[in-house]
């Protein structure tokens, strides 16, 4: 009996470690795959997509709403000297600008019904600044939602989205770093 205690202890330890590791890693792996998928479907880095209306044929993210306009922008603030300048144009109905880090946390949301919103996104560890949000992780996704439950409203939302902006900048300059979209 005693000779099985060692293997049994190893089994319990490995099971617990594998359980914790899988839970810890799963969101990151899923998010990374989702970001790759979004990139493959044309969601640019540092630029809002011009979205198609969500239908069974165009959906790219689980549980998307066919009643909402979604514009996505992937960001990468790995360079601590950069920031992302974000602008959401005005929209008369519900709209929001939401920020998601690499762990799926919705770390900030700004509601902007009837008004435009401008904000800067700073790299992790940055000091707080007025008009800016500090991202908990270097990479993530910015998402604009607009209430647009029919084709006509969706077309109007697309027009409103032409002034949306998601741009990587140097923090002490306006020009975008080389290679940034």
């Amino acid at each position, binding site marked *: 009996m005693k*000779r*099985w205690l*060692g*293997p*049994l202890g*190893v*089994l*319990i*330890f*490995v*099971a*617990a*470690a*594998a*359980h*914790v*590791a*899988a*839970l*810890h890693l*799963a*969101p990151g792996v*899923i*998010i990374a795959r*989702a970001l790759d998928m979004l990139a493959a479907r044309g969601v640019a880095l540092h630029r809002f997509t011009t979205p198609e209306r*969500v*239908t*069974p*044929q165009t*959906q790219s*993210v*689980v*549980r*998307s*709403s*066919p*009643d909402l306009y979604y514009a996505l922008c992937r960001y990468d603030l790995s360079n601590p000297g950069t920031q992302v300048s974000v602008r959401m144009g005005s929209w008369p109905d*519900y709209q*929001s600008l*939401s920020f*998601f880090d690499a*762990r*799926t*946390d*919705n*770390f900030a*949301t700004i*509601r902007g019904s009837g008004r435009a919103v401008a904000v800067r996104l700073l790299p992790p560890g940055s000091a707080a600044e007025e008009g800016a949000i500090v991202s908990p992780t270097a990479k993530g*996704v910015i*998402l604009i939602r607009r*209430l647009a*439950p029919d084709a006509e409203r969706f077309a109007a939302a697309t027009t409103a989205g032409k002034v949306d902006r998601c741009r990587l900048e140097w923090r002490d300059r306006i020009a975008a770093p080389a290679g940034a979209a």
Partner: protein
Amino acid sequence: MQRVLAYLAAIVTGAAIGLGSALWLAGLLPGTNNVAFGNVDVDGWRSDFAIGSEAADPYTRARVAHHGLLALAKSEAVYFTRNTDDDGRSLSSACTYRLSGGAMPAGWWSVTLYDQASMLPANTDNALSIDAGRAGSGAWEAIIAAAAPADTKHWISSRNAGAFDLTLRLYMPDPALLSEPEAALVPPRIERLSCGEHG
């Protein structure tokens, strides 16, 4: 040699148990019930108000990453999901249902139909949801069926959905909904009307 093999078997078995249990509890294994989670249950409509927040536990985090990517935190929106009718039977595209309700404690709401993969079902009916704007103020109802009913104002198509669930989105939730959901929310009723070849 036997001792080495015993330890190897323990490592492999332990890794399989740990990985499998994590994926199962997080709802990441195929066929897992999409709504068997959450810390809020209002008449069978389930939600997890930790979605999107730093307070989300690892199981919620993994589940949301898979089934509800880019969901908003509760201060902006809450999401309830249900996959059974009022009598506790699984929702199926082989049946026809009456979905009915009234005003909701939120600035805007919608109910959307998803298949077991958490995707909109593959049809071209352009009828996969009802929202506050279409429902109007006060009491409302919609028919969920695989084919359009003859005399219904609001139709939600379940064509090609198979087993499905419904997600109730409540944007700009009233404070009472967040503090006392069971008291503040009267969720939609789901009454099965018939079942058969065309529901």
